């Protein structure tokens, strides 16, 4: 049992590979999370314009990318774009797919946050001469973000988990590297290593999240 799943020699041998996979997972997360946040913020700011010409296309966009399975989107970009004469690497495809998919989710969260700030405050800000964007930046967004912090964090957790999809398009992230190691060693130990590492890096986030959620609940009481 231990020889199969926790083989010490294989742990030692696979360690450098798995470690480089971990770095790539972290790097990927550091790219796709800000990208998704940026995309979401742009969508939410557009949604705050409340104009039919902006509203309907925006709703269609958000609905589309929330309904579209991210794995399918990723494979479509990776396998489909070359036929359109555009050959992007796996990494770029992951970045684009996440921008589209997680951006739509972050967008809905930001939008809920923005809606949670009473409009009277914006009117007060505008009446003192602040522009639309200034009122958004100084009055609405700080409160909006604080109000939806648990949701933002929870979505970020999902995004980091989803980076393992990169393995499908040969991005050498944690899961991909672990499977490489597995296929050369003919042993599942590297996969177990990857699983343990995922758990170890995500568990503190889960803890933090549940503390935030409890605090939000207590604050509401």
């Amino acid at each position: 049992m231990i020889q199969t799943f926790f083989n010490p020699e294989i742990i030692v041998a696979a360690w450098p590979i798995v470690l480089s996979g971990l770095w790539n997972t972290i790097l990927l997360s550091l790219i796709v999370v800000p990208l998704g946040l940026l995309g979401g913020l742009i969508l939410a700011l557009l949604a705050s314009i409340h104009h039919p010409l902006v509203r309907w296309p925006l709703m269609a966009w958000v609905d589309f990318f929330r309904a579209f399975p991210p794995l399918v989107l990723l494979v479509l970009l990776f396998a489909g774009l070359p036929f359109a004469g555009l050959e992007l690497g796996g990494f770029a495809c992951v970045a684009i797919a996440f921008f589209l998919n997680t951006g739509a989710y972050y967008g809905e969260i930001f939008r809920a946050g923005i809606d949670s700030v009473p409009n009277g405050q914006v009117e007060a800000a505008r009446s003192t001469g602040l522009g639309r964007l200034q009122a958004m930046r100084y009055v609405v967004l700080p409160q909006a973000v604080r109000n939806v912090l648990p949701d933002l964090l929870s979505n970020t957790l999902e995004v980091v988990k989803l980076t393992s999809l990169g393995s499908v398009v040969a991005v050498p992230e944690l899961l991909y590297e672990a499977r490489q190691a597995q296929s050369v060693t003919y042993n599942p130990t590297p996969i177990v290593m990857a699983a343990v590492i995922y758990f170890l890096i995500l568990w503190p986030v889960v803890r933090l999240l549940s503390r935030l959620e409890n605090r939000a609940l207590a604050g509401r009481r």
Partner: protein
Amino acid sequence: MSQKHIVEARGIHKHFGPLHVLKGVDLEVKERELVFIIGPSGSGKSTLLRCLNRLEEPTSGSVMVDGIDMLSPKTDINHARQRIGMVFQSFNLYPHMTALGNVTLALRKVAGKSRAEAEAIARQALERVGLADRADHTPGQLSGGQQQRVAIARSIALEPRVMLFDEPTSALDPELVGSVLEVMRSLRESGMTMIVVSHEMGFARNAADRVVFMDNGLIVEQGPPAAIFETPAHERTRAFIGQIQRH
């Protein structure tokens, strides 16, 4: 020209979809005048005030404030709004900032003052409303009356030429109303031009220069407080004032 009009609203119409809320309102306000607007709920008082600083876009008509055409596309509306303070029924303070932060925001981001300058001006404004010692409190730590005074400080810090008040004391517990009226009275004494929508008839009687009665999107009549309260010319005015005084 006898005395300068600082506010000149002409032929203001406002539709909300099928709803015709303002039906051709003319309002002129002289410098240093305190004009009181009364009228039944839904008569368009708030909408009229909000048309004056273009928080609401009139469907037609013209609004001049301090010589600026408020409705012209060429007017820098954010610049123009600094000259028109507005105080709301629900205070609308920014809860994530201290009282001082509430007052300095526009000073810094609109008027372009440095942080030190803005804070000095803000502390003076807070002093004028009797809250110098509450500068570092957040709205959540202040009473309703104190919050409304911070809101007034936020407006007066920008040295507006006109102040609009939309039911500034309606959301307050009765025992806190006095402190806000006190601040409004001292503002008036300092020569501020004020347009006030309120049900505080006592305040209207001894502070207002003119009372305007609105009903159903129109100004029905206007005149000195004594005339409007004691000898209103119109039946609707009489009915409304009788109703208010019974409370």
